[in-house]
């Protein structure tokens, strides 16, 4: 299984098809996480993402490898953006290609859910008059 991991200022979602296509794959599934303009009833102006980059890449690779043990896939992609992002901009993209669609659908869900739980990346929300680090409750 091929793995592509990327942390960068901008993530290119238009390249995902080319990155995930494979002669043995009959299906490609992709999830893209995007900045929304509201949080808990307040208008969000922008988000700022910070990563502990070396560790984040290592954790993303572990997640991809774990997915590879659970599902039979040809390719897996995990990308995350850092820096300031405005509403509608993509901040995370995960994708998988597999011979049949069930594997890539299930793997995508696992990839994004696990990324959100264990990859050392942090989000700061900017509202009109304040900014806060998001610290999710268990």
């Amino acid at each position, binding site marked *: 299984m091929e793995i592509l991991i990327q942390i960068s200022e901008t993530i290119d979602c238009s390249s995902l098809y080319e990155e995930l296509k494979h002669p043995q794959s009959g299906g490609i599934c992709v999830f893209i996480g995007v900045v929304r303009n509201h949080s808990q009833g307040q208008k969000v102006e922008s988000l700022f993402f910070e*990563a*502990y980059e070396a560790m984040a890449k290592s954790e993303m690779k572990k997640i991809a490898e774990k997915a590879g043990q659970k599902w039979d896939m040809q390719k897996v992609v995990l990308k995350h953006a850092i820096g300031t992002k405005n509403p509608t901009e993509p901040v995370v993209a995960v994708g998988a290609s597999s011979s049949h669609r069930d594997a890539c659908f299930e793997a995508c869900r696992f990839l994004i859910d696990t990324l959100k*739980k264990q990859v*050392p*990346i*942090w989000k700061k929300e900017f509202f009109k008059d304040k900014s806060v680090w998001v*610290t999710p409750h268990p």
Partner: protein
Amino acid sequence: MNILLFGITKSIVGAKYLTVEQPLGNVADLKSYLENKYPAFGELNALAVAVNNQYAEDITSLNPNDEIALIPPVSGG
């Protein structure tokens, strides 16, 4: 010993790094030191420590050449 800080831990300490002069044997010692010096750490719902880019256990020992980082609750995605 230099500790890398991220997210809210940077705001709590007011710097990107924290330098600890006294010897700390393991991760549990580091957490006690932090909660003592910066009570706000005790208010976080979780605080993990990474040693050399890996999540560490409380009993993981700390050595002078290790890269140590505080990992507050993650919120990527």
